[in-house]
């Protein structure tokens, strides 16, 4: 059976008010195929302020750019990030126009408009809103207003618009999201339309025109006009006819047509590659070095292990890993093999990185200088940032997953566990039952079942930094054994100088912050951590004198025991002499 796909009906109508020009603008876009799955459908409407002569340009610009640019953003981005990004750009442009024209003295004459949009992606609806247009959900007896009017009341009959696009260089856009249900009806309306409409009228119009929502919208706008509205009136109706299945994978991650590969062996011809030798064969995956028969380029092939062949999530990750690798372009992240070929088997083809893993480097350099560690970590941080910029989280950072090539470039490999914000929203990303990753490097919040974040990747990177410097893990195995939030309090960060007294004290403060059990107390982003490692902020260098007990506990106890021993000796002496 084919999985159900997203189907909606849309109706819209706009009518100019008493003054000739219609300052409202509206639009909707329902893409087809892969774009529908990755970005969803969007409706947007804007209402230019009536005091301005240019506001119709502002409303047209806002809706047009939103509908064009939202669908051009990366499919890895979440809806919220993509929409906010597009709206921020639109707002900047409008504000620039306002400041360049009459509006710089009087905002009421600038490029200013309200903006409301609905995006339906996967099974979720997202609302974006600024100003006093409204978004409603229709019920049999009532209209439920989902957006908030950004108006400030001065008196009973007097109020003004508190927030709108084009008024300031930065504005806050309201965002809400919720699970949609088939059969639901939503309305977007400007003030000319909504002030005169009731739920009964809307339900009647929908009943009269069940297959032509445009006609229903036109009828409702006409009714509003007849009831006495003289402002521009625009109404958009969205009816959800069918939603995709909750767990149906996206078309781009389908693997039904791919067979499981045979066991690979040297000199075997496989899908246009010739296998050269195994690199690693384990219960997790089989990795072979191969040569592309067409280009003679070396390539790394990863095939499923026998042990996990029955695990559908594991097999999904094989389609997924290349998808991620093709979307990240960074010198510090592994690239997918660049050839295209019709595939018959399930496998991952990646570039071959000649070099060693960071784990091997650590074995070869047991007590490396800070400068060397800093350079490698800064490169790994760049790789992580490249992922984070695309709303992706690596989630399995460990020394085995960082490769150093012959030129000393660090590259992140193994993208099978990457979390992609935009895919997770549309249920397109394989979801494993256990938190993915390696327990020793996993941030404590992930072990407690909370969602991982940029700061969880930061924790893993900081744990690797600590291990490179000292050969130990910052919390030993205690962080891997966490079961409940109470266990977090028992975590004790062991200062670096217990292992390496030669390292500067501020380094401890930087690492302790990045390794804090509470993600809220860590650096905000990976680049901040990498920067702190190179240019410690004053908060890290202003460190109190460390007491002897912490600096050198052994000597402290030796001295104390010596003093106590001396006391005992004196007391004994006094006793013997009979004093």
């Amino acid at each position: 059976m084919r999985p159900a796909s997203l189907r909606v009906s849309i109706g819209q109508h706009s009518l100019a008010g008493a003054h000739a020009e219609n300052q409202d603008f509206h639009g909707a876009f329902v893409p087809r195929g892969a774009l529908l799955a990755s970005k969803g459908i969007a409706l947007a409407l804007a209402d230019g302020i009536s005091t301005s002569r240019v506001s119709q340009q502002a409303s047209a610009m806002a809706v047009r750019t939103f509908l064009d640019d939202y669908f051009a953003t990366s499919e890895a981005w979440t809806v919220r990030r993509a929409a906010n990004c597009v709206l921020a750009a639109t707002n900047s442009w409008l504000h620039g126009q306002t400041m360049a024209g009459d509006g710089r003295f009087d905002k009421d004459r600038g490029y200013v408009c309200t903006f409301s949009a609905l995006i339906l992606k996967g099974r979720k609806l997202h609302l974006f809103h600024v100003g006093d247009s409204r978004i409603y959900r229709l019920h049999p007896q009532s209209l439920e207003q989902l957006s908030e009017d950004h108006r400030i009341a001065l008196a009973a009959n007097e109020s003004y618009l508190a927030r709108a696009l084009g008024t300031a260089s930065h504005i806050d856009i309201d965002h809400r999201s919720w699970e949609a249900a088939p059969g639901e009806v939503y309305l977007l309306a400007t003030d000319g339309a909504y002030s005169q409409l009731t739920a009964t009228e809307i339900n009647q119009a929908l009943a009269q025109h069940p297959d032509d929502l445009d006609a229903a919208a036109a009828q409702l706008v006409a009714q509003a006009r007849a009831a006495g509205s003289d402002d521009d009136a625009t109404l958009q109706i969205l009816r959800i006819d069918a939603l995709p299945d909750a767990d149906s994978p996206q078309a781009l991650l389908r693997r039904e047509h791919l067979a499981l590969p045979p066991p690979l062996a040297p000199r075997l011809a496989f899908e246009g590659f010739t296998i050269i030798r195994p690199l690693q064969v384990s219960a997790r995956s089989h990795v072979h070095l191969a040569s592309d028969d067409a280009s003679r380029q070396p390539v790394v092939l990863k095939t499923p292990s026998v042990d996990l062949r029955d695990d559908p999530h594991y097999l999904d990750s094989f389609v997924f890993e290349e998808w991620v690798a093709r979307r990240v372009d960074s010198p510090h992240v592994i690239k997918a093999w660049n050839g295209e070929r019709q595939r018959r088997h399930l496998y991952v083809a990646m570039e071959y990185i000649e070099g060693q893993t960071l784990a091997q480097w650590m074995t070869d350099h047991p007590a490396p200088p800070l400068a060397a560690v800093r350079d490698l970590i800064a490169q790994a941080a760049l790789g992580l940032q490249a992922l984070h910029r695309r709303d992706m989280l690596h989630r399995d950072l460990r020394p085995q997953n960082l490769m150093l090539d012959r030129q000393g470039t660090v590259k992140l490999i193994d993208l099978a566990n990457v979390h992609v914000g935009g895919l997770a929203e549309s249920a397109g990303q394989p979801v494993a039952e256990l938190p993915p990753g390696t327990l020793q490097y996993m941030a404590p919040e992930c072990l407690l079942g909370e969602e991982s974040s940029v700061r969880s990747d930061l924790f893993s990177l900081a744990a690797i930094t600590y291990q490179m410097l000292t050969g130990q893990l910052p919390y030993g195995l205690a962080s891997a054994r966490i079961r409940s939030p109470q266990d977090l309090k028992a975590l004790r960060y062991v200062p670096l100088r217990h292992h390496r007294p030669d390292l500067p004290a501020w380094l401890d403060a930087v690492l302790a912050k990045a390794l804090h059990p509470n993600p809220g107390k860590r650096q905000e982003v990976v680049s901040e951590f990498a920067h702190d490692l190179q240019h410690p902020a004053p908060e890290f260098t202003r460190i109190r004198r460390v007491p002897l007990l912490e600096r050198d506990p052994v000597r402290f106890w030796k001295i104390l025991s010596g003093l106590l021993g001396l006391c005992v000796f004196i007391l004994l002496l006094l006793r013997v002499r009979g004093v």
Partner: protein
Amino acid sequence: MAYLAPAEFVTKMVDAGESKLLMSTRDTLVRAYMAGAILALAAAFAVSVTVNTGNPLIGALLFPVGFCMLYLLGFDLLTGVFTLAPLAVMDKRPGATWNGVLRNWSLVFTGNFAGALTVAVFMAIIFTNGFSEAPNAIGQKIGHIGEGRTVGYAAHGAAGMLTLFVRAVMCNWMVSTGVVAAMMSTSVSGKVMAMWMPILVFFYMGFEHSIVNMYLFPSGLMLGGNFTFMDYMIWNEIPTVLGNLVGGLTFVGATLYSTHYKTAPKRKVA
């Protein structure tokens, strides 16, 4: 029924060993307690079958049910962690230390002992009608099983101790082979078949298993066996634990690790 090549199941062994070291204290104790209890119950069951049929082979043939149950439920026996936990240290897994291995062994020992002791008390109640009468036939058999395997060894002095130790080594050679064999298959039926064979061998041959003994001997003390607690400790449990350790580590863990794992090139790309 898929069969995993050695290269695959040996990484699974090392991964399993690593996960033992990463387990929280509570989980380790609970899982060890349940493993000890289930194995003790299986031992009581096997002795009952032997007494009722008069044929030890039938008891041995059926004893592996307990082992299969506890393995499939994910519980840990001391004999298993003797083999698996050190592999994580040998493979230099991050954070794996001998201290961690000793911690795991002592927790599992404690849990296994507590579990076996619980079943020993429960079964003693059943065999003696709540300590109100003399033990029944099975109770008497269990009561006296321990004598030959404590005082009996002691009678031979150093030679007895050597025999005891070798029997313990042989035991965990077989039992750990069962644990490892279960990893070779990905299906439940395959795992059960793979485990059944070596466990059957060890039980019929009367090899010394530290956890089975944690049930048999305390039961013996409760059911009128003619040996003391110190006899049990010195002339059975402690040498058995050491023999099990040597057997599991040398014949199973270290051999498979060195021949199937260390030879592979150590790198992971993609």
